[in-house]
């Protein structure tokens, strides 16, 4: 692994001087009483617990609800950095939606020989029911989270795309609320772009994609698997903040060609369903027959213009880790431009040469499951023991097509507050992008996830990661 001091720290340069975006903050920080700050940090945790921002950890029976740890040192991005990032994100997101439209229609990208046909036809996330269908407004992925990492002053990479049901936006919003109530003076000293209108924009963006059969003001609902889902807090939070209904599958049924919810006064149609449920569970008649979470028959209503499902079924194919490596080509193909945002170099283990390389260099690489998420089933080579490496190599040889590999990136660090003062930790950034028929909107900042363990590169909350408030400064 790279040496400690070779990582790019976003706050302090080699001479321990604050970089430009952090200048003001650093000055403020130096004037604070460290003991008081630590006390504030503890208060923040208390605040989160009271609000109920907790999540359940998968695979732990009867696990207590946990908090995602919050660090009170913000991550600060300059206006210039953000301008370039958001251009790159917008370009990428537009290309992804164009790609989705293409693969469910003429598949020009395959005809042009830029993507092997089997990448689509053999992809579990490809939904045959979507072939030839265009979603309302032409939008496939309405809400996208693009995970970014940084390795140097100007080196940002897109590490992963989340085009199905990206989560974490409630933390972005609550982190900001918490910071504003704890350190109001920071928000008058620094000019920070606001994030709090995200729910309003989300509602507008969803309403703009209302289906053909919608009459009047679109009725928007959030579909949740229920209170035992690990992200339930966020589902309720978003529904509450945008003034939408929060529904579960058993609240819904098909009535007169529409998807309708059971209200105290009978069934009422829904126009736009922001579903926080995977494709597989959406409609037992079309997908998994044993699912009780979805709505039987919703796909037929969708295909006949009775409802908008956001994100559209079948969008998962574009954030598939096997497709990821083709994204630069996808951008070139649909946008006719060079990608502004770099991809991380990726070896597709399905290709024999790449597999051989990956097996030879396993100890230096990060290997991910093509369909995995949340940091599960992934190998961080430099952190793995010899035995773990050997076991993983065996898995890799058995199912090479299930894996991709990437170099271990020298992720940038931002300090966190510890009992010993500031201490650098690795971070990533998930900006949230809203796509409506006429525009792409990116909330300035996003969710900064931070690996709280010293030296760790895994930022996932399920694996001991925390979060930070993320500031984008105004010009």
């Amino acid at each position, binding site marked *: 692994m790279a040496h400690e001091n070779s990582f790019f720290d976003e706050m302090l340069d080699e001479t321990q001087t604050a970089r430009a975006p952090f200048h003001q903050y650093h000055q403020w920080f130096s004037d604070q009483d460290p003991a008081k700050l630590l006390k504030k940090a503890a208060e923040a945790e208390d605040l989160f617990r009271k609000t109920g921002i907790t999540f359940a950890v998968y695979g732990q029976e009867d696990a207590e609800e946990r908090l995602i740890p919050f660090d009170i040192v913000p991550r600060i991005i300059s206006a210039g950095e953000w301008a370039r990032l958001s251009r790159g994100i917008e370009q990428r997101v537009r290309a992804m939606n164009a790609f989705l439209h293409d693969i469910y229609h003429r598949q020009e990208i395959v005809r042009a020989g830029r993507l092997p046909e089997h990448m689509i036809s053999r992809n579990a996330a490809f939904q045959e029911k979507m072939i030839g269908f265009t979603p309302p407004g032409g939008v496939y992925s309405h809400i996208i989270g693009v995970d970014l990492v940084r390795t140097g002053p100007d080196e940002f990479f897109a590490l992963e795309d989340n085009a199905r049901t990206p989560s974490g936006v409630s933390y972005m919003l609550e982190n900001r609320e918490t910071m504003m109530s704890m350190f109001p003076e920071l928000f008058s000293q620094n000019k920070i772009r606001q994030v709090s209108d995200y729910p309003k924009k989300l509602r507008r963006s969803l309403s703009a994609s209302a289906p053909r059969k919608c009459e009047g003001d679109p009725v928007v609902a959030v579909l949740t698997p229920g209170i035992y889902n690990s992200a339930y807090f966020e589902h*309720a939070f978003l529904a509450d903040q945008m003034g939408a209904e929060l529904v579960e599958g058993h609240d819904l049924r098909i009535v007169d060609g529409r998807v309708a919810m059971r209200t105290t*006064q009978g069934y009422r149609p829904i126009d736009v369903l922001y579903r926080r449920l995977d494709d597989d569970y959406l409609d037992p008649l079309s997908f998994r027959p044993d699912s009780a979470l979805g709505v039987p028959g919703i796909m037929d209503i969708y295909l006949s213009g009775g409802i908008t499902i956001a994100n559209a079924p079948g969008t998962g194919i574009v954030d598939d880790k096997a497709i990821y490596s083709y994204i630069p080509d996808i951008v070139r193909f649909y946008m006719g431009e060079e990608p502004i945002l770099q991809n991380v170099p990726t070896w597709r283990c399905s290709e024999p040469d790449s597999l051989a390389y990956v097996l030879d260099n396993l100890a230096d690489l990060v290997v991910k499951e093509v369909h995995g998420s949340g940091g599960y089933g992934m190998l961080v080579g430099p952190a793995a023991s010899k035995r773990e490496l050997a076991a993983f190599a065996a898995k890799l040889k058995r199912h090479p097509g299930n894996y991709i590999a990437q170099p271990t990136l020298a992720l940038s660090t931002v300090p966190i507050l510890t009992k010993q003062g500031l201490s650098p930790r690795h971070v990533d950034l998930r900006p949230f992008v809203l796509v409506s028929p006429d525009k792409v909107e990116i909330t300035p900042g996003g969710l900064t996830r931070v690996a709280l363990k010293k030296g760790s590169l895994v930022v996932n909350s399920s694996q001991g990661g925390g979060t930070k408030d993320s500031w984008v400064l105004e010009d």
Partner: protein
Amino acid sequence: MTTLGKTAGGLFWMFRYLERSENLARLIEAGFRISLTRGGAAGEEWRSIISTAGVAQAYEASGGTYSGPEVVNYLLRDKSHGGSVLCMIEKARDNGRVVRTAITREVWEATNECYITARSILARPVKEADLPDILASIRRQSALVRGALHGTMLRNDIYNFARLGTFIERADNSARILDVKYYLLLPSLAHVGSLLDSSQWETVLRSLSALHSFRWLHPGDPKPVDVAQFLILDGRFPRSILFCIRKIHEQLHWLEQEYGQRLASQHISGQLLDHIGQTSIEKIFESGLHEFLQSFMAESSRLAQQIEEDYRFIG
């Protein structure tokens, strides 16, 4: 915004469970007091508390004896039956999560804090010395939820469903407590106006937080007929059966106004209110207090079912 049937049901049950947990805490408090003042006679009291809580079968099956600490821990924190204070606060909070978008942040946070506090103070078996503090803390937490509800919620159908849950549960609780103790009144059938074993009646009044109000109205030794009259028919006392049924009827009336539709539940609550509003304690004693309470509880449970059906709590 429209109200989902599930949301209406969630609110109804959230507040039923909160009310029930508070009532049970109060019952435990009254029992605890008896055990301090009457020593040996406390066993009978714990037995009747277990029976009032509706968990007698489960308790005896679990091999529980009628000793104070055992009963107290069973009712406060045992998770093997759904009826403990902790379980009910947890269920109230689960329902609160279901209806999170229908309640204000203040109501949700008070409910969540109630749960967090209860879970922490009931994490270990409760020692006698800690019981007063623990009960006080539970009472305080539910008062905070109530305060947030009154202070921050819109007075619309959502509020009505929450209040319906509260009063259906409260009426049932008052009737149940009286019914378990109705035999105390039996001698009075022959000697109306006779004096009672006043500490027994004090316990009943205490378990309904009625002692202060009752004494205010009836200084001197409590007469059974006065106690029964007060707990059933005094419309000024917020835990009396008449008060609760009036409130229920009122909520249903607002719902009728808001939805512009008269439903079967309004009809039932009207009948129930007429019946109780027009009777007298003498008539109740004549036809039998036990019979009266039993039939009231059956009616009120029929009403609850009708509300559930009328407003589509379940699909």
